């Protein structure tokens, strides 16, 4: 009965794991989710003292990972922009998956934020009494709007499900909505542009934190633009990486080699541009911005754990090297190289977000204060684990019952043909 229902919902022409194995997989992640949900409940019902954050580390693991997943989720808007606005048809192979990933990243980040703030029931205050000068107000507005746009972009994917498409006018609505998708792609691009930037601006405007403060253009500090660049550089890499991961887990082939190549090429170009800008910005900051505010560069890097190596790893090892590998066609043609470079690019963005959140908090500003360390509590890890589990579950169900990779059917058939010829 259940298996018949399950079978009727799976897209035609693709192969999915047996229901029992899928059930085990879902059960496993539901377990992770349950633990995290309990941790979230503790924080919401009892207070944030369940975390290891304190008056110094006001932003901890959660904000760092929020910034990271939102940067990686940029693949959704950037792919949409390339496909619908710049008409890069090759990206049709991954757009659905990118939208689902974006939706997961953004909604997950919102959930964690709701736990992270002290008074989540007052979240509407930001809308009712916004401070137009605050980067955080801009982030709140843009992210909630963009989450709405992502939900709308998810609707056509959902309506194309094998069973849902048969219902009434679902397919007609899908058709009409899809025709207008360019509008959402453009709005999504505008919103993403601003909130990715504002997330960077969030730290760049902290004039009291010379480690994070940057000069900039008009009201926007340079981190505003660097965040946008790094997000759109890492986004396609993240999509390539997740697609590969889904291929490994599901043991299917999902997109063609050309699609991988396109993603890698775009990611590589943007990464090189980002590395260039980031290097210039870093040089200007170390030699100009920070000293002018009484903080010569060495003061940031004289602490053992947070030495200059973070800067080197961030820019050279996780920026320049993967960038070079990805723009060089023969290199990126090798799948392991491509994947390693994509992973490095994502790690580079992660490190960048880590530096800007955790390192900014760790470094003292008062001359007689000291460096402080912080290790998240189990509740913080568990709550984030719940968001990861939520993401895995949403993705798993979407992958099983919706068409996330339009090329999969043909690739499956080609594979079957090949196998039959070998036999």
């Amino acid at each position, binding site marked *: 009965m259940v298996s018949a229902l399950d079978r009727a919902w799976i897209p035609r022409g693709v192969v999915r794991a047996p229901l029992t194995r899928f059930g085990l997989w879902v059960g496993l992640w539901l377990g992770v989710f349950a633990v995290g949900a309990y941790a979230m409940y503790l924080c919401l019902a009892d207070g944030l003292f369940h975390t290891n954050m304190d008056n110094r580390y006001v932003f901890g693991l959660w904000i760092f990972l929020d910034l990271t997943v939102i940067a990686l989720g940029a693949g959704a808007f950037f792919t949409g922009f390339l496909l619908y606005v710049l008409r890069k048809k090759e990206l049709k192979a991954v757009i659905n998956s990118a939208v689902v990933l974006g939706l997961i990243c953004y909604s997950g980040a919102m959930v964690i934020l709701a736990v992270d703030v002290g008074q989540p029931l007052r979240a509407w205050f930001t809308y009712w*009494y916004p401070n*137009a*000068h605050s980067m955080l107000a*801009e982030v709140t507005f843009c992210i909630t709007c963009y989450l709405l746009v992502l939900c709308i972009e998810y609707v056509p994917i959902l309506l194309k499900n094998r069973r849902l498409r048969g219902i009434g006018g679902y397919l007609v609505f899908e058709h009409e909505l899809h025709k207008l998708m360019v*509008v*959402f792609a453009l709005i999504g691009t505008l919103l993403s542009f601003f909130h990715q930037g504002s997330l960077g601006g969030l730290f760049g405007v902290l004039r009291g934190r010379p480690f994070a403060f940057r000069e900039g253009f008009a009201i926007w500090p340079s981190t505003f633009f660097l965040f946008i660049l790094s997000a759109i550089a890492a986004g396609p890499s993240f999509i390539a990486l997740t697609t590969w991961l889904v291929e490994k887990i599901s043991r299917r082939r999902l997109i063609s080699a050309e699609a991988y190549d396109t993603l890698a090429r775009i990611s590589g170009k943007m990464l090189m541009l980002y590395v260039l800008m980031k290097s210039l910005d870093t040089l200007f900051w170390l030699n100009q911005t920070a000293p002018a505010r009484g903080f010569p560069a060495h003061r940031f890097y004289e602490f053992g754990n947070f030495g200059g190596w973070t800067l080197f790893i961030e820019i050279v090892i996780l920026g320049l090297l993967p960038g070079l590998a990805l723009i060089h066609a023969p290199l990126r043609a090798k799948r392991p190289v491509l994947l390693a470079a994509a992973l490095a690019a994502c790690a580079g963005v992660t490190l960048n977000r880590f530096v800007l959140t955790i390192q900014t908090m760790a470094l003292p500003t008062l001359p007689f204060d000291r460096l402080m360390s912080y290790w998240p509590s189990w509740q913080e890890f568990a709550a984030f684990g719940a968001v990861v589990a939520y993401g895995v579950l949403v993705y798993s169900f979407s992958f099983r019952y919706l068409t996330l990779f339009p090329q999969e*059917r043909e690739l499956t*058939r080609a594979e079957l043909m090949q196998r039959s010829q070998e036999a």
Partner: protein
Amino acid sequence: MFPWVYGFSWTPGHVIFVGVFLTVAAAVAVTVFLAVFRSVQDFRRGKARQIAWQSHFHDLPASDRACRHALTGELKGRVCDNGFDCRQCSVHARLTAIETAPPAGRLYHRGHTWVRPAGDGTLLVGLDEIATKLLGSVGQAAAPPAGTVLEANAPAFTVRKKGAEFRILSPVDGVIVESHDGSQGWFARVKPAENYSDVHLLRGHEATAWFQREVDRLQMAACQVNGMPALADGGVLEGDLSEVLPPGVWESLSAEMLLDS
């Protein structure tokens, strides 16, 4: 956010910030509304079915959307973009302008149904050999009752077998005047619609070429299955395929053959 809320001020920053936000919100709302409005319009104008079919059609693999003239070799590698509806196709019109001979025998639809004039002004509609091999005999219960209006390319009825469901596409426009259990090869006698046209149906050597390709596809899929009677000449397929092929392959293959993605 609004002028009547405490804390609002008419400073440029505030006005730009809130203005941009409200514009974006309005744009999203208007676009969604537009999509709903257009959908309702499509229904009013009776375009819903056509849109649904086009949408299905575009989801088919490119190899399943080969133009009939590509199958016969007249054109190279052309993928149909008309939803197999040659009645509006300019390419088809151009290529068949010289062909005047009236069609004889069965005309085939790409969803593996056929049409044959019964001689009394009605048309007989049936499942072809491949569909029969895949699904077995349809049975009276599944066939649509008399009075059902058929529309070319739209689902005519649904067949259930072994837990799988397939919808059979109608090859023609018309009204069923008599339904049959398919034991004599046909399942419906149809009174053609006024604007009845058969130019979208395959005929003659097109049908042969197409049929050959479909058999090849079956053969390809069948090769991997042990004990499957794979015949070199591709002429005859023995046995009930749903029994011989593994369920996953059988369902996927049947769905593709019947254009039910």
